[in-house]
């Protein structure tokens, strides 16, 4: 699905990613954990094509294409979806209109016909149920005056409509109450399939109780310092990052 090799990136001259290696195969769920400021969102944003980061070294291949050469909209059309840590508000643009435009842009890219209003409505109603969102959110402006939790749910709703091949979830669990967490996790689980992969960025073991990952990686100071199975998250929950960081510090010294 995606293969990240020795990825280095900096912003305004400061190196933030210092050699990331990550291989995600179809159907896999990878969790990325790590302290604040370690570079998790930076990684997600670079994969999505945000311009302010400069990739200084390394390569990323996505479904056989050189991802770093692709425009952000083409990455999305090819099936890469980022659920933002901080979803953006777009006043005056209805959620429905926004999603329909997005869906049809993706369909056009795939050589499919644009979806008409009826079909679209059927689809979105179905997907709203997946995240237990009310229909009134369709007519509201994108994320405007949504609560923190509603914004996160809206991200997963969009993912369910656009059906990407790779979903990158950047702290989708933060700001969710326990019921909403279950709903969101449930939604993601329903989207899991042998063809679809996920990279789930989170600080909390709790989410991983619901979305059970195949792999867990610890990102610290721009590098993946440890990888393991689902049990690694449990270990971190109990012990925190300190021990790992210290061990890594010593190993590096």
């Amino acid at each position: 699905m995606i293969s990240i090799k020795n990825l280095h990136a900096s912003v305004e001259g400061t190196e933030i990613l210092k050699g990331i290696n990550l291989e995600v195969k179809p159907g896999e769920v990878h969790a990325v954990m790590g302290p604040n400021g370690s570079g998790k969102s930076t990684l997600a944003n670079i994969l999505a094509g945000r311009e302010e980061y400069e990739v200084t070294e390394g390569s990323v291949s996505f479904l056989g294409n050189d991802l770093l050469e692709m425009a952000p909209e083409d990455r999305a059309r090819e099936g890469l979806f980022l659920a933002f840590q901080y979803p953006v508000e777009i006043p005056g643009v209805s959620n429905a209109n926004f999603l329909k435009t997005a869906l049809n842009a993706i369909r056009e890219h795939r050589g499919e016909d644009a979806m008409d209003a009826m079909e679209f409505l059927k689809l979105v109603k179905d997907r709203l149920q997946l995240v237990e969102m009310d229909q009134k959110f369709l007519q509201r402006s994108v994320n405007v005056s949504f609560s923190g939790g509603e914004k996160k749910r809206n991200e997963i709703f969009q993912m369910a409509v656009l059906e990407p091949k790779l979903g990158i979830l950047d702290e989708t669990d933060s700001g969710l109450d326990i019921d909403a967490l279950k709903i969101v996790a449930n939604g993601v689980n329903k989207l899991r399939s042998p063809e679809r992969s996920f990279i789930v960025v989170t600080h909390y073991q709790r989410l991983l109780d619901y979305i059970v990952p195949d792999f867990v990686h610890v990102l610290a100071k721009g590098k993946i310092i440890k990888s393991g199975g689902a049990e690694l998250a449990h270990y971190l929950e109990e012990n925190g990052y300190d021990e790992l960081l210290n061990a890594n510090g010593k190993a590096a010294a």
Partner: protein
Amino acid sequence: MPQTPIKSEYDDKFGSPEQQETIEKITKSEYKWGFTTDIDTDLAPKGLNEDIVRFISAKKEEPEWLLEWRLKAFRQWQKMVEPKWPNVKYPEIDFQDAYYYAAPKQQKQLESLEEVDPKLRETFDKLGISITEQKRLTGVAVDAVMDSVSVATTFQKELQKHGIIFGSFSEAVKNHPELVRKYLGSVVPYTDNFYAALNSAVFSDGSFCYIPKGVRCPMELSTYFRINAANTGQFERTLIVAEEGAYVSYLEGCTAPMRDENQLHAAVVEIFVHDNAEVKYSTVQNWYPGDENGKGGVYNFVTKRAITHENAKVSWTQVETGSAITWKYPSVILKGDNSIGEFYSVALTNNYQQADTGTKMMHLGKNTRSTIISKGISAGKSQNSYRGLVRVGKNAENARNFSQCDSLLIGDKCGAHTFPYLEIKNSSAQVEHEATTSKIGEDQIFYLLQRGISEEDAINMIVNGYCKEVFRELPMEFAVEAQKLLAVSLEGSVG
């Protein structure tokens, strides 16, 4: 006899111009409506003097009183100077170097639309104007004005049933001289300002609309203006009268062909709203804005004003995307108690366009209310200014105004300016003003890109969303057209 409104002495001191940024070159976006029609035009000789005024009046077979009125306006104009306070820059206009009358040669009175010159019809078709019978299914009666003379008027019969008069100004002068005489200049006197005086002297045609007492106009009335002949100024005069308890929604759309020279346009719109009546006036203006280097384009100096009597209401809604220079402040004199004035505006400038637009709300009556929603969008190297006056007279107890003026910048070579003026002479007034200036958000664009939407569509979507509050005041078809127009006008503004 309607009373002459307060003279607008503050026209002269609306605001001092701000120094403009140095102008550079670039960007694209071609004018879609740029084609000229080859019809023999009937031109008056170049230049402006009393003889030209007489020529125009004679051509139109006007009564003596109207000629006298024009001449008074002309003499007034000679004594006036061009206003210099708008935040726009352009080379000195030589008013003697233009034609003041151009009529499509077509003398015969027309019985039906089929008789209209096919080339003219073609022009209108290209503009997408529905003047043919079939197209009128949309329920829009169109009075099309090309180079000042009204060419065809539709839906006359249906309107006549209700006693509504809607047609060209010239026809109205012939058929309803008493009405025209009563109201002409009653809201915008020829002494009002330089361009209004000029218009009063040389106006060639325009639209006249009269809604009798208690009548709700059953359809939207629409006028399309279009400048065709080279180097002719277009001076239309529109007069709308809504009698007691009447209602009308009026649409004005404009386009002009592409030309290198600058074309002068100085229109006057007067709206007289009697007790309990309501008028909605919507404009979509896309006169030729000039090319991407700032060459050519229409100079648009317009005076639009309404006067409301007791419990009456007027809303101006405008979407301004065209013209090299726009100078325009649709205003309301809230004369009657409990009357309401509204102004909803989207003004978009790109390339080298300059717009100085806004409104004046003049509260004279008690419990009068006004709302101002202005959305300015600047792209390219353009300059976009909002200029608004809220004036509360000393007898206007409990007047209320809410103003919201937002500016959106696309790119970093354009400018947005806001000049709000307040003159409050009654302490019971409640006046609220909000203003924001923002750059189109990189975060917003990226969010849409990440969902697979192209950059161009992303910007259109954000801009349209930003204008939503204004667009929803427009009639449906007009709103759709306005959205498309924004998209076309924004082409080439990014990347």
